[in-house]
């Protein structure tokens, strides 16, 4: 990496709530769903921050609020694409946002519904350039081709329509479209979740290569924990709209400090029959965000619950360097993480022809 890492994104007290009409045809008045509840974190340039959590925990809402694809209710997003060039993203007008948007892009989950079926691949990839009036004429084609080749698409592909492609190829089109603006920051929202195992590996490798080459910073949102561990430098765990733990990837998976993270990690089924899963089975399910539990949101399902958990919201505090947890008892508890794989799990494939 040529430049010193700096804080590319600094998110402070981000909040997003959605009004919800209740009763028949909305006659019952309104309630509020707090999807993101006072979340603060940062992302350093060149790193990948993983964002995990179960459905309804607010992962996608955070990703979209940062890009202002949806308007956050309150809080600030400080974005520094390069040192010396900084924006207060949350305070900008729509016109001012236009200057910032090229630096931040998004890759979506479903490559089948996120590409316009009536546009050729060339037009799909070129569209951001045209809309933002970044390039003109033959320069556009040059840039499109350059990016497409980098994403392992060829000239022939550019003339075709999205329906002619497989899931993995479509996801590469989506990546090329994000990359064509030469962004600094990409939100990958479940970018590999809909893909088959072998294709997923290819896309994860591609994302890794592109990060190195273009010095990209990723916010990687996914519910597949093994993929997140593989690609992320640091990981944040969400529960009901709040961050419960942030730590370097390995530390978070194998020595978690929050009981929810510990339960989540213990539930990952290891692809090895000799590492039987010993999941910490949580009671019940994630509560509704309309009426979240008091104090620590996790207390009704926590096996270590104490009286103060029911009334006091735990702060996100740094317990070890770079390792933050939001639990009143993180300094006194020893929690199990993901089951460590035995040596036997490294597959013996080297002597493939030996038995021949």
């Amino acid at each position, binding site marked *: 990496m040529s430049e010193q890492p700096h804080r590319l994104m600094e998110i402070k007290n981000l909040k997003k709530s959605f009004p919800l009409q209740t009763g028949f045809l909305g006659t019952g008045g309104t309630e509020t769903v707090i999807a993101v509840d006072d979340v603060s974190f940062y992302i350093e340039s060149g790193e990948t921050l993983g964002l995990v959590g*179960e*459905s309804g925990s607010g992962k996608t809402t955070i990703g979209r609020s940062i890009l202002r694809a949806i308007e956050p209710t309150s809080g600030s997003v400080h974005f520094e694409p390069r040192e010396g060039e900084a924006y207060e993203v949350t305070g900008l007008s729509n016109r001012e946002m236009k200057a910032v948007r090229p630096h931040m892009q998004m890759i979506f989950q479903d490559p089948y519904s996120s590409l316009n079926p009536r546009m050729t691949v060339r037009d799909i990839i070129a569209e951001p350039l045209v809309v933002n009036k970044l390039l003109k004429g033959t320069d556009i084609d040059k840039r499109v081709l350059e990016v497409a080749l980098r994403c392992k698409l060829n000239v022939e592909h550019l003339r075709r329509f999205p329906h002619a492609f*497989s899931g*993995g*190829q479509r996801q590469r089109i989506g990546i090329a479209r994000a990359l064509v603006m030469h962004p600094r920051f990409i939100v990958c929202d479940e970018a590999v979740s809909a893909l*088959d*195992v*072998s*294709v*997923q*590996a*290819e896309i*994860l*490798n591609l994302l*890794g290569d592109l990060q190195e080459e273009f010095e990209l910073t990723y916010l990687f949102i996914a*519910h597949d*924990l*093994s*993929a997140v*561990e*593989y*690609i992320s430098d640091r990981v944040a765990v969400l529960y009901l709209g709040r961050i419960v733990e942030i730590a370097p990837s*390995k530390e978070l*998976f*194998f020595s978690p400090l929050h009981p929810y993270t510990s*339960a*989540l990690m*213990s*539930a*990952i*089924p*290891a*692809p*090895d*029959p*000799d590492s*039987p*899963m010993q*999941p910490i*089975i*949580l009671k*019940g*399910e*994630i509560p509704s965000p309309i009426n979240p539990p008091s104090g620590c949101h996790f207390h009704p399902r926590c096996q270590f619950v104490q009286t103060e958990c029911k009334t006091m919201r735990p702060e996100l505090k740094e317990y070890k360097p770079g390792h933050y947890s939001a639990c009143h008892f993180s300094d006194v508890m020893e929690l199990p993480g*993901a089951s*460590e*794989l035995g040596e*036997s*799990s*490294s*597959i*013996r*494939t080297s002597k*493939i*022809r030996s*038995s*021949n």
Partner: protein
Amino acid sequence: METAENYLVKGDPLLEIKDLKVSFKTDEGIIPAVDGVNISLKRGHTLGLVGESGSGKSVSTWAVLQLLPKSAIIHKGSSIKFHCKDGESVELTDFKSKSREIRNIRGGEISLIFQEPMSSFSPVYTVGNQIMEAVRAHRDVSKEEAEGIAIDMLSRVGIPNPKRRFKQYPFELSGGMRQRAMISVALSSNPSLLIADEPTTALDVTIQAQVLNLMKELQEELGMAIIFITHNLGVIAQIADEIAVMYLGGIVEQGTRHDIFHNPKHPYTMNLLRAIPRLGKTDGGRLVAIEGQIPSPMERPSGCCFHTRCSEYMPDRCNVNIPQITQISPEHTVRCFLYES
């Protein structure tokens, strides 16, 4: 019925699929979906079917229940033999999809659960109503008795407050709850085989762990066999006794879970295992993706289907002939020329 079940022993043969071939008629011609699948499953055992999309996992199991769409053809010479609870064995391919015989098998002997429980429940009946329907279709009981059985089933799958849930509609239940309710429908008639088609794919990991645990517990309690279809290799390593790996409509390798995970033989199986990220093991390293794309079923490669993507491809052999099944050990078989003498 109780006496009949006395001679149902764990380990006895339950289902034997021989040379199953299924094709679909489409406007573009006849497309083979399953091409010569052999499976034998014993009572009380769990068979895992793994493979990527389009490998024929689901189609093979739908054929067992005669649930294939009208455009499907089961080829002559395919045989699906099933041993019923009363000791008789039946040939399932002989039954028409709407015949009384197959309807007794469905639910009564073999149950099916799907990936998306929301679309398998009717939205206009209560959960209880739908469980009672399944109970009364296979057992001669009164409405009151059926209600008792249904509530008992709901509490058995770990649904809190089953009396209240009994009266609720599917949309009032969360995803994990619905999958539990679905399992209780499937198990209400005490089947000897449960086919679970990606039952945990749509669930979060903590809920997935709950459901997997539940299935293992119920299997021990009721002694049923399970065919578990998934593309998640982690899940399959945890739940299956035996595993069959499918590629483009055929089984390329079959063995115990230890064979498949620790001593894989087929290049496709090895590739698949190397392609998945493993916790704490892939530090900085690259994943090994499988070269190329899964071929379209319209353009099936000649010879061994996998030869177009195989790292061990031998010209003039793999692309010409179809490899035969080779025994590695009594339980471990593979279809690959590397092991044929």
